[in-house]
C-alpha cells in the first residue's frame, strides 16, 4: 500500500487526513430514523462524490498548471462561462443536443488558450492574466445569459448529470475517466515529465530542448478544458446553464490540488493525490452541511484549510533543508 502511494506520488498523510476527517464527520453527523449516521448512508456517499466531481475535475486542471509553477485563478468563472455557452447553443438557439458538449468544452478550452497565449506571448504573469480572466469570463457568462439561468436541456445532456447507471451517478464515471487519462499523461508521458521539469526549473526545461512556450500554452488550454467539462456536468446536473455556476470554485480546486501534494512552487504534482484532496474538500463540505453549519462559515473553513496546508508544507520543507 505504501509502495503504491509512493509510486503514484500520493502522500500518506493526505490519505490519513481523509480517513480521519470522515471518522469525525461520521461521529458528529445526526442519526437517521433507522438509527444510522446520515454521513454513512450510501446516498450521502454519492452526494459527496457528486459534489466533488465538479471541482475535482477543476482541481485536475489546477494540478497541471500549478505543478508547472503556474496558476489558474479563472477556473471557477470559466466553469460558469462554459455552463451558459453550452446551454445557450442548445436551448436558446435550438441547435442539436451535442452542441451543449461542444459549446461547453470549446468555451472552456478557448478561455484557457487565451490565458496561455497572453502569458506566453505577452510575458504577463499568470497570476494577473487568470485573475483578469476570472472577471472577463464571469462577465461574459452573465452577458450571454442575460443574467438568468438558461433552463431546460435535452435528455441526452441530462443523462450526463442525473442518470445512475448501475446505481452510480454518471458524473462519477466522467470524473474517474478524466482522472485516469490525466494521471497517465502527467505521470507517464513525455508531456508530463516536461510539465514537472518546467515547474521545477525553467532553465533546465529550455536547455534540454523542451519547447517551453508550447508546453505552457497547452497546459493553460488543458486547464480551461477541465473547466469546460466541469461546466458541462454542472449544467446537466441542475438542468440549467447557470452564469453564477462555479463561483469561488477556484478556491476549492486549488486547495484540493495543494492538499493532494502538488507543490505550489512547481515541480511536483499527482492526479491521484489531487483526487484525495478533492474528496477531503467534499467530505468537509458535506459534513458541515449535515451539521447545518452556515455556508458563510464553510467558506471560511475552506480558506483556512488552504492556508494551513501551505503553511504546514513550508514548515516541513524548511525543516528538511535545515537538517
Amino acid at each position, binding site marked *: 500500500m505504501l509502495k503504491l502511494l509512493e509510486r503514484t506520488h500520493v502522500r500518506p498523510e493526505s490519505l490519513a487526513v481523509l480517513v480521519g476527517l470522515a471518522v469525525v464527520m461520521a461521529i458528529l453527523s445526526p442519526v437517521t430514523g433507522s438509527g444510522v449516521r446520515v454521513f454513512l448512508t450510501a446516498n450521502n456517499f454519492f452526494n459527496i462524490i457528486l459534489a466533488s466531481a465538479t471541482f475535482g475535475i477543476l482541481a485536475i486542471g489546477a494540478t497541471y498548471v500549478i505543478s508547472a509553477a503556474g496558476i489558474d485563478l479563472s477556473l471557477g468563472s470559466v466553469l460558469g462561462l462554459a455552463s451558459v455557452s453550452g446551454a445557450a447553443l442548445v436551448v436558446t438557439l435550438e441547435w442539436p443536443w451535442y452542441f451543449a458538449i461542444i459549446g461547453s468544452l470549446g468555451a472552456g478550452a478557448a478561455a484557457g488558450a487565451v490565458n496561455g497565449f497572453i502569458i506566453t506571448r505577452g510575458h504577463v504573469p499568470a497570476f494577473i492574466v487568470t485573475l483578469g480572466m476570472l472577471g472577463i469570463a464571469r462577465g461574459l457568462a452573465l452577458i450571454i445569459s442575460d443574467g438568468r439561468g438558461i433552463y431546460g436541456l435535452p435528455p441526452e445532456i441530462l443523462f450526463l448529470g442525473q442518470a445512475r447507471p448501475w446505481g452510480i451517478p454518471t458524473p462519477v464515471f466522467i470524473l474517474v475517466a478524466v482522472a485516469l487519462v490525466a494521471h497517465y499523461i502527467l505521470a*507517464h*508521458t513525455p508531456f508530463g*515529465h516536461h510539465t514537472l521539469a518546467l515547474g*521545477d*526549473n525553467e532553465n533546465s526545461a*529550455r536547455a534540454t*530542448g523542451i*519547447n517551453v512556450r508550447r508546453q505552457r500554452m497547452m497546459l493553460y488550454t488543458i486547464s480551461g478544458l477541465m473547466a469546460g467539462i466541469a461546466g458541462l456536468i454542472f449544467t446537466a446536473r441542475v438542468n440549467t446553464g447557470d452564469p453564477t455556476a462555479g463561483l469561488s470554485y477556484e478556491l476549492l480546486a486549488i486547495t484540493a490540488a495543494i492538499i493532494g501534494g502538488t507543490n505550489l512552487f512547481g*515541480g511536483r504534482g499527482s492526479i491521484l493525490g489531487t483526487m484525495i484532496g478533492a474528496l477531503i474538500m467534499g467530505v468537509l463540505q458535506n459534513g458541515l452541511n449535515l451539521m447545518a453549519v452556515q455556508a458563510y462559515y464553510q467558506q471560511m473553513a475552506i480558506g483556512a484549510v488552504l492556508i494551513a496546508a501551505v503553511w504546514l508544507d513550508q514548515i516541513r520543507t524548511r525543516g528538511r533543508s535545515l537538517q
Partner: protein
Amino acid sequence: MNLLELAGVKKSFGAVQVLNGVDLTVDAGEVLGLVGDNGAGKSTLMKSITGVYSTDKGHVRFDGIDVTHLDPGERREMGIEMIYQDLALAAQQDVANNIFLGREPTKRMLGLIPSFVDKRRIDRQAQEMLDQLGVHVPSVHIPVGMLSGGQQQTIAIARALTFKPKLVIMDEPTAALAVREVESVLKLIDQMRAEGIATILISHRLNDVFEACERIVVLRRGNVIADLKRDKTDMAEVVSYIVGAHG
C-alpha cells in the same frame, strides 16, 4: 570543413552589448579552451551556440548547416550538448529522469496506449552511463537536488554524453569538483577527443585549460582578442590577454 562556425555574432541585453561580432571556428574532435574575465560574455556566447539565446546578428553554422534559427531542441538533435554553468538540472526530478529530460524513450503501454515513457529503460541506461563515467550516486531514483554539488555536476556531464554528441560545451564543469574528480573530467575530455567529439572548455583554472586544450581563445568584453596554439604560448601571455594588458 569546420564543425562549428560563428560569424559576426552579436548579442545585447537591453542597452548592454554583450557580444560585439564574434567569429570563431571549431574542428571536429578539437578541444578548444575559452577563457576571459568574469562578464566577458563566455556563457552568453555558448548559449547562442546551443540556441538558448537567439542572436541579434550573425550566423551559427554547425555540421555544414545554418542553425541560427533552430531552437535548442533541434540543435541538440544535431549533436550540440552543453553543460551549463548553473547545471540546469531539475532538482525535484530523479537522477535518471534528469539525464533523459527532453529525450524520453517511449513505448506503447500494454502494446496499446502510446507515448508511455519507458522508465525502466531510462533507469537502466542512466545507471550504465554513470557506471561508464565511474560516478557513484546512491541511486538513480533520488531527486537530483539531494546530491552534492560535485555529484550534480557529474549528472549534468552524463546528460551531455548520453546522446552521442558531436560537440560538447562545458561551462566551468570543474568548479565544484575535488582534485581527483577534476582529473577524471580532463581524462574524459581526452577520451572524447579520441572518439572525435569536439569540446569547448570554459574555465578560470588556466592549469586545466593548458592541460586539456590544444587551442585557447580569449574573449574580452564580447570580442575575441586572441586565438592561440597551446604550444606557441604560455600562461603569462594568456593572462595578459585576459586582463587586457597585452599590446
